[in-house]
């Protein structure tokens, strides 16, 4: 097989040599034979006759020789290709429309497929990635769906769940890396020693962490990412043993990861051991995950997910037996779930991506139907020519291959253009924030995608060829020769087919429009939701205070300094500190104990957003005060045990009395009387996770002194535009400590707007798709109607000659298009209803069947279709009987 392909290839590349050689060989044969015959006494003329009789025609021999090499297929193909090019060039309007349609439809599909491919399809770059699982604790009845895993979970489960070959934990973080004066803030990961072996991909140079390196006294080691190693150490092969300062603590480099190492969407540059103290691993800390530490595991080769889940459930049940909190935990609906790692990572975006894929496929379908329709019209224009050729003996194989070559040439060229559109589309998606999707940075336009697109284009060409070839072959030749000529009428079947296509196009475009409308309306409804604070004129930024440089007192001092410096700046109305600003992406909740609150049977502990605030945070953010007072700068200074709760919290625990003066404890275990916090104020509820968050779980605001996290957000209300204050804010922080950078500097408005990317981009894309769909539909309708008018030119002329008014003719064609429109819209309504139901999970406060959306979609489709029908109808009405009847 290979030998034959090679020899065919050699011949094709040296085609001229092949032909010349063949002629020369035959000439040689004839001359030699002639000489031999003449030598044996025959006359030259006789010899020529004899040879001619014995050898046959050289032309036939050559044709047979070409066939022996399979070259003739290629010749045939080239001939048909040239013919197809000639035909397409004769109808530039059709060709341009077809190419543009294909380019847009294939390009749009390529773009969305690129995203689907990288996010949903392409496996993670670890060995046997489908064996990788993630495990997280969930307390659904406490309003905490996802709480990560605790250190205790890790140490209790390690090597004790037989279905897992390996189990490890990690947490994401950002740390300040580098020598004083040249520090940068980098993404980091803290991982347990077996993290890399769980993934199956460890350091390219050096070693992984050991169990001995998991205490805070011994964890002074680090593993670098390949990118960081190249950028900071110039790929120095002797990097092992060198020192790297992380959060001012010197650590020894013990390994460098391979270039292909990339854990999910993380861009971590430095990996550190996930160190902990023995007391953090005690059973009492089992449920203190807080969504900070995540667990992954690799299934044994022969184990199933269900097996792992039941082993985990069994272990959890056994461990809870002697847990004093067992009752509360059970009431909260606690479970530890095993979920495939990749599916879990992309679960949030999966429905949106699938919806977009469906939308773009509908677009392709509309484009394809459109093209088939245009091709059919073209085919009927050529029906007579082909019938004549068939009558003259052209075989069906030849006709089919001719049609096939033409349609495939068209779709292939469209596919090439589609590659360009797709590349631009991927660029557009990036600007819409596609690389912020999980695994979104992997979205690339590569040879693989290009091949998929071109293969799809060829398949499309073959699909297009089928109805066209069928149209030519199924026709009775005699009928074909007569129909659509002077004496004939148009083929009834072909006309019905054309109209069916138009109806389905209108229906599909309607579905797309309605879908886009639902998404747009959802977006509008989401935008109308109040975040619970005044988001304008607030600049926020994150500051990381390393423990080594900033122990407890140092932190408070830093915060105090920062507040003092900011307060005196012109343009600052108020400034505050919080350890977790709304829309930061951190949605961890924690428990609180309310004095005097006895849980009703079946009622579980609740997780609340718990904040530590300093300065004038509430005024800076524009919170509304419902009762009592805000926490002031003095509260955080004096470390007085006071707190503020939000209205949801107050309503839940004290539905009939005032919250002010009530006592509560941080944590689920209560505490001594002098550790209780007194509620001094009630503020309005605030959206933490996003505008669409609808669970009002309640929030507690403690003075920062009691919630000293190492990450803080500074919030500044400015009189000018908040963005312009960013540089000043950075300068102020640098004045206090040059090695503490401010990162993630965004205004609250920007944070809210960024949180809507997952809604805005799909709505935008769906809008774009439905716009294109409408355009395609109008092109299709225009084409079919123009054709109908052209075909019935003579009939119309006769009617006008007999006294029909131009208005009657116009109405006739307009009513035809109106009938198609009504049928298409009714069908579309049905489809839109189904589509709305399918996308219900993506809608926000919009029912799947929204009248306003449907009415708008119907109006738009009607307007566009009627507008495109006006021109051909008008043309029909203006046909001059004299000219039309004189033709042919």
């Amino acid at each position, binding site marked *: 097989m290979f030998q034959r392909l090679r020899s065919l290839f050699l011949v094709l590349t040296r085609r001229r040599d092949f032909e010349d050689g063949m002629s020369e060989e035959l000439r*040689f044969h004839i001359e030699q034979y002639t000489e031999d015959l003449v030598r044996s006494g025959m006359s030259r003329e006789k010899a020529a006759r004899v040879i001619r009789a014995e050898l046959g025609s050289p032309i036939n021999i050559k044709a047979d020789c070409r066939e022996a090499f399979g070259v003739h297929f290629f010749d045939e193909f080239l001939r048909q290709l040239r013919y197809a090019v000639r035909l397409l060039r004769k109808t530039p309007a059709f060709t341009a429309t077809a190419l543009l349609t294909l380019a847009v439809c294939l390009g749009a599909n390529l773009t969305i497929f690129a995203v689907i491919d990288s996010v949903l399809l392409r496996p993670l770059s670890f060995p046997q990635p489908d064996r990788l699982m993630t495990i997280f604790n969930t307390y659904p009845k406490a309003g905490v769906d996802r709480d990560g895993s605790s250190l205790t979970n890790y140490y209790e489960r390690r090597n004790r769940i037989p279905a897992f070959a390996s189990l490890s934990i990690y947490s994401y973080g950002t740390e300040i890396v580098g020598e004083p004066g040249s520090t940068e803030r980098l993404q980091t990961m803290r991982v347990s020693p077996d993290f890399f072996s769980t993934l199956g991909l460890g350091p390219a140079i050096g070693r992984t962490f050991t169990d001995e390196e998991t205490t805070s006294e011994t964890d002074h080691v680090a593993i670098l990412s390949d990118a960081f190693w190249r950028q900071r150490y110039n790929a120095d092969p002797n990097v092992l043993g060198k020192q790297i300062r992380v959060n001012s603590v010197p650590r020894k480099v013990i390994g460098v990861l391979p270039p292909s190492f990339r854990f999910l969407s993380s861009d971590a540059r430095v990996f550190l051991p996930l160190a902990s103290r023995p007391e953090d691993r005690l059973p009492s800390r089992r449920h203190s995950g807080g969504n900070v530490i995540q667990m992954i595991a690799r299934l044994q080769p022969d184990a199933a997910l269900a097996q792992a889940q039941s082993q985990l459930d069994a272990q959890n049940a056994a461990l809870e037996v002697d847990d004093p909190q067992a009752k509360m935990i059970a009431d909260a609906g606690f479970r530890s779930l095993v979920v495939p790692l990749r599916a879990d990572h992309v679960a949030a975006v999966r429905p949106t991506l699938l919806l977009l894929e469906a939308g773009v496929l509908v677009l392709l379908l509309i484009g394809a139907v459109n093209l088939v329709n245009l091709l059919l019209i073209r085919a009927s224009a050529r029906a007579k020519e082909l019938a004549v050729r068939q009558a003259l003996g052209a075989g069906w194989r030849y006709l089919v291959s001719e049609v096939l070559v033409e349609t495939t040439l068209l779709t292939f060229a469209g596919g090439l253009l589609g590659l360009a559109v797709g590349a631009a589309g991927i660029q557009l998606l990036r600007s819409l924030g596609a690389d912020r999707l999980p695994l979104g940075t992997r979205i690339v336009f590569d040879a693989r995608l290009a091949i998929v697109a071109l293969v799809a284009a060829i398949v499309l060409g073959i699909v297009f060829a089928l109805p066209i070839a069928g149209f030519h072959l199924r026709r009775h030749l005699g009928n074909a020769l007569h129909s659509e000529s002077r004496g004939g009428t148009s083929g009834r079947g072909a006309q019905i087919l054309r109209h069916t296509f138009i109806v389905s196009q209108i229906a599909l475009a309607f579905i797309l429009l309605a879908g886009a409308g639902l998404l747009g309306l959802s977006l509008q409804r989401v935008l109308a939701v109040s975040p619970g604070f005044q988001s304008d004129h607030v600049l926020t930024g994150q500051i990381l205070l390393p423990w080594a440089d900033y122990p407890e007192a140092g932190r408070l001092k830093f915060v105090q300094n920062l507040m003092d410096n900011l307060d005196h700046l012109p343009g600052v109305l108020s400034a505050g500190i919080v350890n977790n600003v709304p829309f930061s992406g951190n949605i961890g909740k924690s428990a609180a104990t309310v004095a005097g609150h006895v849980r009703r049977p079946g009622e579980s502990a609740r997780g609340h957003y718990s904040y530590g605030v300093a300065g004038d945070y509430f005024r800076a953010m524009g919170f509304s005060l419902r009762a009592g007072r805000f926490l002031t700068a003095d509260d955080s200074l004096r470390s007085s045990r006071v707190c503020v709760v939000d209205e949801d919290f107050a309503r839940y625990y004290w539905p009939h009395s005032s919250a002010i003066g009530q006592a509560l404890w941080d944590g689920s275990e209560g505490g001594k009387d002098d550790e209780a916090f007194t509620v001094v104020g009630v503020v309005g509820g605030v959206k933490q996770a996003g505008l669409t968050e609808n669970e009002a779980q309640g929030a507690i605001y403690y003075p920062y002194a009691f919630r000293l996290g190492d990450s803080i957000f500074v919030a500044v209300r400015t009189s000018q535009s908040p963005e312009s204050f960013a540089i000043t804010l950075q300068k102020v922080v640098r004045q206090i400590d040059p090695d503490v950078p401010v990162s993630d500097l965004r205004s609250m408005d920007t944070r809210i707007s960024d949180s809507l990317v997952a809604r805005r981009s799909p709505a935008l894309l769906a809008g774009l798709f439905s716009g294109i769909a409408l355009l395609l539909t109008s092109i299709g309708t225009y084409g079919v109607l123009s054709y109908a008018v052209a075909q019935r030119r003579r009939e119309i002329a006769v009617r006008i000659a007999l006294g029909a008014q131009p208005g009657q003719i116009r109405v006739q064609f307009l009513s035809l298009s109106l009938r198609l429109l009504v049928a298409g819209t009714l069908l579309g309504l049905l489809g839109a209803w189904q589509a709305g139901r399918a996308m219900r999970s993506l809608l926000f406060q919009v029912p799947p069947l929204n009248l306003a959306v449907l009415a708008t979609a119907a109006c738009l489709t009607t307007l566009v279709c009627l507008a495109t029908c006006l021109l051909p109808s008008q043309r029909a009405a203006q046909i001059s009987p004299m000219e039309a009847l004189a033709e042919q």
Partner: protein
Amino acid sequence: MHNAAALLPGTLDMLILKAVSLKPLHGYGVLLRIRQISNAALEIPQGSLYPALYRLEHHGLITAEWGQSENNRRAKFYTLTAAGRRRLRAETAGWNRLASAIAAALNATSEEV
């Protein structure tokens, strides 16, 4: 020539391989060689000769190379390849089996039945 036997289908390829196996030959030479080794008892359809040569070349059983003919003209010479040699051996064996089987069948007498 009038008493030359017509070729059985499929035997031309075999004869060409045999002719070329003795010595590299050009197309006309193949024709002459087959006539010579068959004592002019076989009628070679000349029109099929070249397509057969091209087919064998395409299948890698023979290779072609341009060279000088006996009277110093440019001619294309065919040589047997290793694959061609294997094929010739197999076809020869197959032919011999077939021929002897048919001969045995045709020579059967009434006593042997």
